[in-house]
Each structure stands twice: as C-alpha cells, then as structure tokens.
C-alpha cells in the first residue's frame, strides 16, 4: 500500500520526454510509439503527461537541455585543479589503502609480517653471494656489504614501485568501476606502500651499517630528504607507467626486463664512480652517474657510509699519481679513489636528485590526468 501510494502521490511528476529512435525489428512493440528508423534523425517525442511542472520542451535538443541543467558529460575529464583538490581530499583514502594493502600482503604466509624484514635480507644475501663472492666486484670498494645492501634496498624501492604501478589500474578494476575517486590515488597509494616497506628495510640497513663498523653521524639525516625526493620521483614515473600499463598489457610484460637492465647499469653491485672499465669513457660514465637510480643510491650511500664519503672520487684533492695507484691495485690503495676526478660533483648530484623528482612528478601527473576518464574501461 505504501508503495502504490508513493507511486501515485509521493513524488512530483514531470513530463517525461523520451525520444525513441525506433527499432527495426523485434517483438513487443506495442503502443503509443512512433518509429523513426533513421538513427540520429528527427526524433518522435513520446510524452506521458502525468502532472504539470517545469517541463523541458520536447523539441529542445538534449545537449542544450543538459547545458541548461548544468550537467556534464560523464566521460569528460575533470579540470586539473579540481582534480588536485579531489586528490588532496582523498588523502585519508590513500594512506588507509596503503596500510591495508601492506597488512594484507602477507596474510597467506605463515611468517606473516616477518617477511617484510626477511625479503630485503635475503635479497641482500643473494646479491652478496653472487657479486661479492663469486664475481668479486667488491674489489676497490671499502665496506662492500653495506655498500651493496644500500644499493639493493634503494633500487628495490624504485623497481617495485614501477612494476606495481604498471599493473595498478588493471589490478584495481572492481574498485575503479564501483566508486568514483581520482584514479591517481591508486599509484600514489602503492608507492606509499613501497615507501613503508623501504623504511623497514632501512632499519635492517642501519643495523648492517653499524655492524660493519661505520660511525653514526649527523650525515645520516640527509637520508630523509633523499628518500623523500626518490619517493616523489617514483610517484611521477609510476603515474606514467600506470597510464601506459592500463592501456596495453605488453608494457607490464616487458617492464621487469627493462628494470633489471637498469639495475645492472645503476651501480647497485659495483661502483660506477670507480669502475676501471668505465675510466676512459667519460660521456657514458657521466650518463650512468646522473641516471635517477644511481643519483639516489649514491646520495644514500654517501650519507650513511663514512667509507663512501672518504673514498668517492672528488672527496680529496685531485692527484693523478694517487688515482693511477688506485686503478693499478685497488685493493691496496682502497681510499685513493678519492683523489680521482669527480665527473659529477656532490652538489650536482643533489641538483639532479631534485630535478628528476620534479620533472617526473610534473610530467607524470599531467600525463596520468589526461587519460583520467578512460581508466576502468575495458
């Protein structure tokens, strides 16, 4: 009874305008409809006058009607500033999403959250076995273990952010289709997850650094701005990859190989600054040293490790003789690499660190936003 009551009296009735473009065949076309088989042509209006109201004219073109009511096309992209505001408004969602994902990540494993510490440790152990012992790239690098582990952890942050970001849209399709929220929240959230993981890894790293006899100094505080800049870089690049990965699956198939190649050229398990085979190739060495991963890795290493601060080229006045001594027998003259010429100064590294972060963020955000209305389609 209540139901039929509201049908008849509850809601204000308006004139309904339905333009029927007609159908060519099919059962059940019964009453009251004029057919107009020409698609997009003049429509026949079917009016069901139930009550008077501020009715639109049947003849008014629908786009004009929409404009009059202030409606927007659903498939249109939001304005960029409004999008930013939306994103800021969803900050609690981004943080909550990251935390929840982090908790859920290891629910299927018996050791649970212990894997957060175990994974980086095992990673470091594998790389030490291969590069420190079997391939012996530790020659010429003081405190190789701490050097290697720092590189592995920092690179891992970027690597995982990239790979996850490239899949994030396709992995979150149900959420994207069910609710409206700025889609950039997803890659942002995932990079935040990786940042949380990195912070746990950093605790492990600090233990290793102290355990290998490095002193605790104020320089350590520099790690914070470096990781901040790296996180911004990851977000920016992650946004680019998220859009690319949302379109074609080929990218997320290919990405692991690209990232691995990148790892081998970023000085994760050797020092690009002092590698002998790079000594004659200034241009190549320069490019390798200013690539984003190498920049962030080097900055973290020099902040955390005194041995790196003392041995990195440019740390001591240039001396051709001492530099040659180092290259002749690196193990004996371990710290003389400091007397070699620095291709990129320390200040230069910081400028690159800021530059890469800002560049990636601006381009990434803009690029991701341009396709905002297209995510979730399939």
């Amino acid at each position, binding site marked *: 009874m209540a139901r039929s009551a509201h049908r008849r009296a509850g809601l204000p009735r308006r004139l309904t305008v339905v333009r029927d473009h007609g159908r060519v065949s099919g*059962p059940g076309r019964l009453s009251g409809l004029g057919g107009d088989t020409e698609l*997009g042509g003049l429509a026949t209006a079917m009016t069901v006058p139930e009550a008077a109201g501020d009715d639109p004219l049947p003849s008014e073109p629908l786009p004009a009607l929409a404009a009059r009511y202030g409606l927007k096309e659903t*498939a249109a992209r939001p304005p960029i500033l409004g999008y930013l505001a939306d994103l800021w408004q969803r900050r609690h969602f981004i943080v909550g999403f990251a935390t929840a994902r982090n908790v859920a990540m290891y629910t299927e494993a018996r050791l649970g959250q212990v894997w957060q510490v175990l994974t980086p440790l095992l990673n470091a152990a594998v790389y030490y076995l291969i590069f420190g012992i079997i391939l012996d790239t530790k020659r010429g690098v003081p405190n190789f273990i701490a050097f290697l582990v720092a590189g592995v952890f920092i690179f891992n942050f970027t690597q995982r952010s990239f790979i996850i970001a490239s899949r994030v849209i396709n992995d979150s399709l149900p959420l994207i*289709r069910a609710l*409206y929220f700025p889609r950039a929240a997803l890659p942002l959230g995932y990079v935040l997850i990786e940042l949380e993981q990195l912070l746990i890894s950093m605790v492990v790293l600090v233990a290793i650094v102290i355990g290998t006899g490095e002193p605790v100094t104020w320089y350590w505080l520099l790690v914070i701005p470096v990781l901040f800049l790296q996180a911004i870089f990851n977000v920016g690049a992650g946004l680019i990859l998220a859009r690319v990965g949302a379109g074609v699956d080929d990218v997320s198939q290919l990405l692991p190989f690209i990232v691995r190649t990148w790892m081998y050229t970023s000085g994760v398990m050797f020092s690009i600054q002092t590698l002998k085979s790079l000594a004659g190739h200034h241009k190549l060495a320069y490019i390798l040293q200013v690539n984003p991963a190498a920049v962030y890795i080097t900055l973290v290493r020099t902040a955390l490790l005194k041995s790196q601060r003392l041995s990195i080229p440019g740390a001591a006045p240039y001396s051709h003789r001492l530099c040659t001594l180092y290259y002749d027998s690196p193990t004996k003259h371990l710290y003389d690499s400091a007397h070699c010429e620095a291709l990129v100064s320390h200040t230069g590294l910081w400028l690159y660190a800021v530059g890469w972060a800002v560049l990636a963020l601006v381009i990434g955000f803009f690029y991701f936003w341009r396709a905002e209305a297209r995510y979730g389609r399939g």
Partner: protein
Amino acid sequence: MVIVDDLHVVYRVYGAGGDKGTAATALMRIMRKQQRPSIREVHAIRGMSFVAYRGDVVGVIGRNGSGKSTLLRAVAGLLPAEKGAVYSDGHAALLGVNAALLDDLTGERNVVLGCLAMGMSPQEVKEKHDTIVEFSGVGDFINLPMRAYSTGMGSRLRFAIASSKSHDVLLIDEALATGDAEFQRKSHQRIDELRQDAGTVFLVAHNLNEIYETCNRVIWLEKGQIVRAGTDVPGILDAYLAASGSEPRFRELQEAEAEAETATVEA
C-alpha cells in the same frame, strides 16, 4: 539527473579466437602487418536517448545481451561513446554482481576504505561505520576477508557501503538479486531514501517484481535500442511479459492494490 543523447557504444573484443594462438602465428601476423584477426566489433548500443530526472528510479529491462549492463557502464562513464553522449550532474556509483571492492581485505577495511574513497572524512566514516555494518547484516563475518563471503553477503556489504552516501547517480546492475528476501526489503527502503535525497537510481533486474515495486520509470531495451520507455510501469512490464511469451500480470496487480487501498481508506 541523467540525459542520454543518441548514444552509440561499440565494444572491441580482443582474443575472440581466430588463429591458433601460438607465438609463431602471432609473429607471422605482425610481420604481415595485419590487424589482430581476433578483434571483433560489437555494436552494443545503437542510438539511445532518454532523460531521467532527480528522484527517478529507472528500471532497465530486456533480455540477456540487449545492452542493459552496457548502458549502465556508459552512464557511469566507464565506456566511451562511439557517437552521442551521456550527461549527468555528478559521479555515478556502479554496483555490479561480481565487483568485490578489495577481495583480500576484511569487510571492516572494505567499509572504511570504500567510504574514504567516496570522499568521506575519517570522522564521518566512524559515525557511519556501525550503521553500514548493521545494514549489511554480515555479522561476525565483518572481520573476515571479503573473499570468504558468500555472493549474497558480498553484495549486501557492497550495497551497504555504496548506499551510505547519497550519490547523484546510483547504478545497480543485478546487485540486489543475490540477497535474501529480508535484504531486498531493506534495500528497497534504502533506494527510496536515496531518491528522496534527489538522486537518480538505475536498476537492472530480471526479477520484474523488483522493478514493479521499486521503479517509477521503466526502459525496455532490445538489441541495443529502446523499445518502450515511460512512467507507465505496469503497462510496460506487461508488454514485455507478453513479448517474451508470459502472462501479463502487473496491470491487474496494480488495480488490485488500488482497490485494496480504497477499501482500507473507506474502512
């Protein structure tokens, strides 16, 4: 309010078969610069126009493959229009049958994250949390991951989350069909409240009773086009029933209800 203006939607389906699906055939195809043979176009919506106002609950009926779900996804802005456009006054929430929000998280976290994603503040989420959980009726299961839920429980929770905020446009694609009788009653109440908040609700259902009881307007689709649309709900439902070879019954039902009502009033 939703305006659909001469909408055409074309799906492009990949991987519909075609070649043997081996690496060798794929390579040959690329070398010959051929399009993927498996790409097929499905013209799912062929020129549809209608207006749905604030406070409308629009039932969408039609046979399988007539374009109901496609229409809803287009209204939600999830499918690009080949031609024409969809206009609405806000973002749409789309509830489908299988769309779990975050499968590996507990119901509890889904409630919180779902609400935050819809733009509520943490304070609002706290206030609404108990209502949502109670409405969903999943009980102790709220602390289990959503993948442990039955289909019905999942859709109850999703509906509870999505309907906790008033949306400008709410699209329900058979999402209520898996609920039990008690939940269907509760969800109808909720939909009524939503339309009083001046939202527009679209409801796809094969259960015509659900449409009859909930909607004040019906759109009947066939092969991607509108057969009939209007506010004469029992009339259109009966016509649909007649067309699909069943006995029309809603007009009678309405008259019987009206009579019963008059009788009650007189008494």
